[in-house]
């Protein structure tokens, strides 16, 4: 009897809810599933790193609420007549989070390290040859040719006084526990697998934040993430399992924001025209790929694989990036299986033996291997099943093999591209250059995952990289997308929406970027975190 009472008492003690969070501080709690890999901008490759760098660091040029360039650490800037020398005037009076002054030395050190070494952020500085200090608050950047995307560069400026004694080698492993930065928040605690805690930087040069702390809470699954938002344990989430949207929208205290995402997912083909390729040579025929584009019901894929949270895909640069996106309009390849069949018939692919699979004139069947990553969530697998059916309907057979990301990467890069089709995705930057570069001939074996080669496309790329006149550059970029659309090394399946949800009962001031149509929390623009305040 005594033991029973003791047991019950213990149970009661344990079941009592925890004392509420210290109510004197205002703490914004955001739930995430992916955590960053490191605190150093010289090491980080995961997208989740922006949880840290957007709060802790600043760039020379930032984005305003309409995603146009505006001064960050640099007050203003100008470029020389020949477009080869950029001069940046830095803001004065900015302090690092450890009290030291920010000045040109920091910028020079950061840029020089990125130029001389090879780090994740280095690729943005292609074409820049030197960074030079002019005086305490002025810096010059020298380029080989006019650099059209200079104003879109996002490079985190690190403190020279912390990094000065690190060699280029050291930078591959050096990471501060609590990085010193100029940004609006400081990372004060990171318990791996559990949470990251940020404190407000009272001395932030654009004004102190209106909240005291941000805690990013790490969840291992989408279910508990959602439940925590529902019961108020967290205030916001940056990703939602698509069929939870409806349920969340019914909650009066929760607002769901569906914004245009900046990703695209594509059906990629093995376009490697080389004897080393282990791909099926039939896939090299652009007519077959074009037919596939007409045969795939992208609307249905968005409906089922994304539960409607996305837009059917067309060109390489997503519409959310603005006018860089080329809209095929009347040249659009609509869902038209009859047209697809027609294209195949005219190209000489006919089913001669009645097995519903077409052959070419020599009897080779349109029978392709389809690699599908099953570890990135379910959307790829669902899309692949729909694609398989669509292609079956026009006489092309596919054999799906599922694997995880590592295995597919291995298949393409280390096994001589031992597959014919695959699904993969990219996230796009605000400037189109980097994304346009992934299908260049020179990127075969490097960034390119389709190994496609087109000389006209390569030429246009070289031109647009230096076209400082926006109108001219727009034309070139559009033409490039059109080539990709017609040759179809990638069939862009969809642009998934960026969906966020936040509670409206404890905090206000959530800012959407771009105004009215974008999302807020996982933006590179810091607006939301500067405007958010307790209700």
């Amino acid at each position: 009897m005594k033991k029973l009472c003791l047991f019950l008492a213990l149970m009661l003690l344990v079941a009592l809810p925890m004392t509420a969070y210290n109510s004197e501080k205002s703490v914004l709690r955001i739930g995430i599933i992916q955590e960053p890999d490191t605190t150093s901008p010289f090491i980080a490759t995961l997208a989740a790193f922006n949880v840290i760098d957007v709060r802790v660091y600043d760039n020379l040029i930032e984005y305003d609420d309409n995603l146009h360039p505006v001064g960050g650490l640099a007050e203003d800037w100008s470029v020389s007549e020949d477009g080869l020398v950029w001069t940046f005037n830095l803001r004065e009076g900015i302090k690092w989070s450890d009290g030291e002054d920010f000045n040109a030395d920091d910028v020079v050190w950061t840029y020089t390290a990125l130029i001389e070494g090879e780090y994740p952020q280095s690729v943005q500085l292609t074409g820049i040859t030197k960074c030079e200090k002019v005086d305490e608050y002025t810096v010059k950047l020298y380029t080989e040719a006019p650099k059209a995307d200079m104003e879109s560069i996002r490079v985190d400026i690190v403190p020279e006084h912390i990094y000065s004694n690190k060699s280029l080698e050291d930078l591959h492993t050096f990471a501060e526990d609590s990085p010193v930065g100029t940004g609006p928040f400081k990372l004060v605690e990171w318990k791996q697998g559990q949470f990251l805690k940020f404190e407000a930087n009272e001395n932030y040069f654009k004004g102190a934040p209106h909240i005291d702390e941000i805690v990013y809470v790490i969840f291992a699954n989408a279910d508990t993430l959602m439940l925590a938002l529902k019961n108020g344990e967290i205030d916001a989430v940056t990703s939602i399992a698509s069929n939870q949207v409806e349920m969340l929208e019914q909650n009066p205290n929760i607002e769901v924001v569906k914004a245009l995402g900046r990703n695209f997912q594509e059906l990629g083909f093995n376009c490697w025209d080389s004897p080393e390729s282990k791909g099926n040579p039939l896939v090299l025929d652009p007519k077959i790929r074009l037919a596939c584009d007409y045969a795939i019901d992208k609307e249905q894929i968005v409906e089922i694989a994304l539960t409607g949270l996305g837009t059917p895909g067309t060109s390489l640069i997503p519409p959310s990036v603005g006018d860089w996106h080329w809209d095929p309009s009347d040249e659009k390849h609509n869902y038209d299986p009859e047209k697809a069949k027609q294209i195949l018939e005219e190209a000489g692919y006919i089913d001669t033996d009645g097995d519903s699979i077409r052959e070419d004139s020599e009897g080779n069947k349109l029978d392709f291997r389809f690699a599908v990553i099953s570890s990135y969530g379910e959307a790829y697998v669902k899309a692949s099943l729909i694609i398989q059916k669509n292609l079956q309907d026009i006489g092309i057979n596919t054999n799906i093999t599922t694997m995880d990301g590592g295995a597919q990467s291995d298949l393409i890069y280390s096994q001589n591209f031992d597959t014919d089709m695959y699904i993969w995705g990219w996230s796009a930057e605000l400037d189109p250059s980097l994304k346009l570069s992934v299908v260049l001939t020179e990127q075969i074996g490097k960034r390119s995952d389709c190994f496609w080669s087109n000389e006209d496309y390569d030429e246009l790329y070289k031109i647009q990289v230096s076209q400082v006149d926006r109108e001219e550059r727009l034309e070139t970029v559009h033409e490039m997308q059109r080539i990709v659309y017609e040759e179809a090394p990638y069939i862009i399946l969809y642009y998934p929406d960026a969906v966020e949800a936040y509670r409206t009962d404890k905090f206000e001031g959530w800012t959407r970027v771009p105004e009215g149509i974008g999302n807020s929390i996982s933006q590179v623009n810091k607006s939301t975190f500067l405007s958010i305040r307790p209700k």
Partner: protein
Amino acid sequence: MNLSYLSKKLSHSIITLFIVITINFFLFRVIPGDPFAMIAKAGNLSAEYKEELSTLYGFNGSLPIQYVKYLRQLFTFDFGLSFKYRKPVLEILGNRLMATLLLAFFAQLFAIILGTVIGTLSAAFRGKKIDVAALGFALFIYAIPAFWLGIVLLSFFSVKLGILPLNGMVVAGLSHPTTWAYIKDVVHHLVLPVFSMGLAICGGYAIIMRGSLLDVLTEDYITTARAKGLKRKDIVIKHALPNAMLPMVTIIAINLGFMVSGAIQTETVFSWPGIGRLVYEALMARDYPVLQGAFLIISLTVIIANFIADILYGYLDPRIKYE
């Protein structure tokens, strides 16, 4: 228990450890997927960057050379750097291992106690309703996948009743004013995962306990005790149980390997920051050093546990004790 038994068991353990280290090494060199290529693709990076990383990690040289290098590093407790985090593997493992050990220890404790009770009840009242109920419960529990049980319990206690937390080891980001407050917070978060994992394991223990006890109850000395008129409760608890516990000791040690499997599932459902989840994430990222390190540490723990179990067994089992 004499020295020869002890040294025999010790040498067995060491050989097993060596075999594990070897399997560990070759296993990871054989998996497809170049982690550097993956890192490069994730960050939209160049082939040059991939080369830099390869050099940094010294993935050069033939397999035998790398193997020897690996062994030498192990001797100095150098488990290498994590590919993903660029931090020493031991550091990454250390944080997470503690969390899992906490969970596993209490889950085992709970499972052993509950399993023993159920198994004993079942064996002592064999054939009666209690036996059927207890055995039925044990078998039913044994058949439930650990993750499913976890989700069901989560839905009931955390969602429906709302009395236990949804995730994590502590309330995220909370600065605990006292150590006692911290302990209370951890305990509060431990309850459901321990209950879930413990329940999932106890079924097997109950069945083994029952079998073992039934075995013992048929022995001659038990029959003698009953003939002498000793009460059933005394017979079971004082005479039979101690002997029946012996096989349990071995089983518990062996079961430690299963702890990781249960841990992976439980940690995924309850967002517990343990080594199980780390292994899963490391596998996806092809973070070999972490995987190798985790495997090694877990195997080592099991080997040590087995060794202790052997010693305990040698101490408790009179047949060996008086050799």
